[in-house]
């Protein structure tokens, strides 16, 4: 039995005529200690999928099993890093993390809790900013706080919903390494949602494309057999990397073409330069 299992999941939003099935027939299983990435276009239903796993929403059909038990509501065993960080703007960095730690370890004394907070803030190199509020931090720093908050609760599994999506390329690269470093220490099970194929390949053991919704469903999986720790520059020359990358992009492009040919209506497309188009898949 897998650590996390999704069996024939369907998720429909809305009722009656307005109902749209966002996710159809999703099957996924993740083993303990595995790092899995799911890539997909914006709006394909990735956030819906993670919210099913972390317990914020329930599937319309099918079941989510975590360690063999059906998921019912959220749990401290599954830590979440949200797409938009979701820090509370009226709390400082320390207070944001403290709030989480206090819930996760209700029996610990205030002093112990503060030590944990300091330890995790240190881990994401934010000690100098520990008493600042989110608005005084850059996007990368905010995401670090979100990482610290999720990890400080010592979850067994960490679920990340496009954690680096809003960051510039440089910060993004740095944070990828940081997250991998932290993950490498105790290899907790990790699920990464991303719209960046390269990021998925660089970080994960296994990468699965999500076919765009409505009726999004998971495509074939791609195993990434590149030894850790991985090196970005070296990887660019790695044959396996190139092959996988091309295969995934081709798969995602094919879906795009398929969808286009399926569309009966004619749409007026916005003017896109080729650069934008290629960037979409980076």
């Amino acid at each position: 039995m897998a650590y996390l299992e999704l069996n024939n999941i369907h998720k429909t939003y809305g009722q009656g005529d307005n109902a749209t099935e966002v996710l159809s027939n999703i099957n996924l299983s993740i083993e303990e200690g595995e790092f899995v990435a799911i890539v997909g276009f914006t709006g394909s239903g990735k956030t819906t999928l993670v919210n099913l796993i972390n317990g914020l929403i329930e599937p319309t059909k099918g079941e989510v099993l975590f360690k063999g038990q059906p998921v019912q509501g959220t749990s401290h065993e599954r830590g979440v890093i949200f797409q938009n960080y979701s820090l509370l703007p009226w709390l400082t960095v320390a207070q944001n993390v403290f709030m989480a730690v206090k819930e996760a370890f209700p029996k610990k004394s205030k002093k112990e809790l503060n030590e944990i907070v300091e330890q995790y803030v240190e881990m994401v190199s934010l000690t100098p900013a520990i008493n600042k509020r989110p608005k005084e931090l850059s996007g990368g720093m905010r995401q670090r706080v979100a990482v610290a908050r999720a990890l400080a609760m010592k979850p067994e599994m960490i679920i990340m919903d496009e954690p680096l999506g809003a960051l510039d390329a440089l910060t993004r690269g740095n944070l990828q390494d940081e997250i991998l470093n932290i993950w490498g220490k105790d290899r907790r099970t990790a699920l990464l949602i991303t719209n960046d194929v390269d990021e998925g390949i660089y970080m994960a053991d296994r990468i699965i494309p999500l076919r765009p919704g409505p009726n999004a469903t998971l495509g074939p999986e791609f195993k990434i057999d590149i030894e850790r720790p991985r090196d970005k520059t070296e990887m660019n020359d790695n044959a396996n990397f190139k092959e996988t990358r091309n295969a995934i992009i081709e798969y995602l492009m094919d879906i795009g073409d398929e969808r286009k040919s399926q569309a009966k209506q004619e749409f007026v497309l916005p003017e896109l330069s080729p650069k934008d188009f290629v960037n979409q898949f980076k």
Partner: protein
Amino acid sequence: MKQSITLGKVTKFMGLGFLNTFKDLFTGKLEKEDYINFLRKSVVPLASILLFIGLWHLGAKSLYNTEAEFKIEKALKDQGPEAAEAMRACIASGDTSCQPNTLPSPSQVWTSYKSLLKDHRIIKADKLAFAEKTAALNEKRVAAGKDAITYTGRPSFVDQIFRSLRTVFAGFLLALLIAVPLGIFIGLSPTLKSSFNWFIQIFKPVSPVVWYLLVFMIVKTLLIDSNEDSSFTISFISVGLCSMWATLVNTAMGVSSVDKDYINVAKVLKLGSFQKIFKVVLPSSLPLIFTGLKITLSVAWMVLIAIELLAQSPGLGLFVWEEFQNGANDSNAKIIVAMFVIGIIGFLLDRLMLTIQNAVSFDKTDAI
């Protein structure tokens, strides 16, 4: 230089940014843009004030003439040409007995303003003298277990202002204590929300006069045994009930529309309901609650005058009413002075609330 930057920030923060142009005039180097800014922010408002006073002056003068002509005509018709001539002479001489009763001119209002201040100084001195005179006696009375003698003279205009402020703050506090907790409960529970909705919709538009009557009916009966003056109690309760609706509605709205992201955080962290309310829901609705409180305070100040007048509770409202009844020569001018004082205090209260509101507000994009 650092000092002036912070000063600039503070004035801007309080919505008094126009003061900065004056400061720039004395400290900074001026560019062409600054001159235009100065013109727009200082000279133009000043000019509009002068224009207003000018128009007022002309209007008052023409009303005065109309009224004077009418008086002379009337004297002519009722008592003949001699009486008419006497009336004309009397009006021209400025004698107070025959002045036309109409909108006072700006200069009359200014004179009244000064005389009110003078009156205040006299009453203040009087009070001090009274306190000195009775100090020894009062000590004895208190020692003997009797009540001290208090000054029972007429309150001055400035005293009236402070009494009004006291009433308005008591009413505001009452509104806050009722509306904020109630709003939180309503906002948290959709059931309460739908069951209270009709209640809010019906009572919100009720006029201050009706609130006053309602409170009067109840308080009068409740305080039937005590011989204390209940007018203050009645007026501050009416002010509170009348003005609390904006806070109630805004609090309920703020609490029920907390950003979904924050709610998701609360769920993922599995916060208990106490933590959720005090650490997530309330802080995130503070800006809306304060918007409500700001409206509440300005409504409270606005209805206060009418309610004081009805309740015969000391304050500016009663002052206006008494002056109107009084019908003395400068009563109209005093009423206009009260009008400006009411307006200016209302403006200052609004600024005060705006400052607090800015301090508790946060920008959601700040955390994303």
